[in-house]
């Protein structure tokens, strides 16, 4: 059996959200198991299952190369620009 990650869309219009994992023999089976395990109380309107091995993930230790450069770019944030009060809601 293989590990699958389960994503559920709780309502139309929302993103699928990671809900948990499960073991299954095939993607089809994983989908059925996901229904039984994760959606017993109408948790959603759509389920995605993805083989865990197919997920390419960044590592905590890679943090620097992924996120560090952003700390010295405060100008990417709206609050960096000080505007007169009357128009500050822009």
């Amino acid at each position: 059996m293989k590990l699958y990650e389960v994503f559920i869309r709780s309502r139309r219009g929302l993103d699928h959200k990671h809900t948990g994992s499960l073991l299954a023999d095939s993607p089809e089976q994983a989908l059925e198991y996901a229904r039984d395990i994760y959606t017993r109380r109408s948790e959603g309107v759509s389920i995605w299952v993805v083989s865990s091995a197919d997920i390419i993930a960044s590592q905590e230790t890679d943090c620097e190369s992924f996120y560090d450069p952003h700390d010295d770019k405060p100008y990417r944030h709206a609050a960096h620009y000080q505007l007169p009060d009357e128009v500050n809601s822009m």
Partner: protein
Amino acid sequence: MSEEEILFQQRIDAELKVEPKDWMPEKYRQNLIRQISQHAHSEVIGMQPEGNWITRAPTLHRKSILLAKIQDEGGHGLYLYSAAETLGISREELVQALHSGAAKYASIFNYPALTWADMGAIGWLVDGAAIVNQISLQRTSYGPYARSMVRICKEESFHQRQGYHIMMVLMQGSQEQQAMAQDALDRFWWPSLMMFGPHDAESANSTQSMKWKIKRKSNDELRQKFIDQSVKQAEVIGLKIPDPALKWNKAREHYDFGKIDWDEFARVIKGDGPCNRQRLQHHIRTHNEGAWVRDAVAAYEAKHKKQPTRAA
């Protein structure tokens, strides 16, 4: 109407989003592809007038800001192309339609960016107008489009503010700098109003788009909202909006404004704006020059298909 179409419309009327694997009328799909791809092309073509000023930004700080903004716009293009692709069209087809002229992009980007103040006017007015439109599209009926709008709106907030900040600083400067800011406003004001498209009565795609809730607010409603918010913003920093007919209407609780030059709008849409040819040619040239990257990706993919790295 078929049973499927009736169910589809009921779902729309109930404010439920349409998701990629749902059944949808072919015309809904086509309408969305047209609108989302036009939006994506606008994000990408819109990088050109601003790109023109990267090497000439007055300070390193302004240059960093401009680079960050343009990078965001490229990202917005990618979100939107991907959203369009969920409707079963390929990137190649989308780009091809842009190059052949079958697909349009916002006509505002066919105007040149002549001075540094134009970077201010574009951020403040062009991004400002885009935000007004995009806020309403956060509620569009197609899920992937709505979600990309939410992401984009979050990122847009700094675009308008940095533009306004440029204008504000110029207005605190010398007479020459103030005149430069006013000139940029004079040139960008009317084309910004045209960004919302023709008046409702003349808008060909509007009725069906509203019924399908692809569009949530009419062109005229959005334009009015933009005008109302801009008047105050101009006033606060001492800029004058170039419209002698602009006047607060107490009864309507909106500003009345002058006539938009729809002949100019039609001319620019048709291809006769100041920069249409240049914008498209530049896109075609860089797209062709990037062919080796796409070839390399395809070669890499083919190589890995032959010798899979992971057991299936």
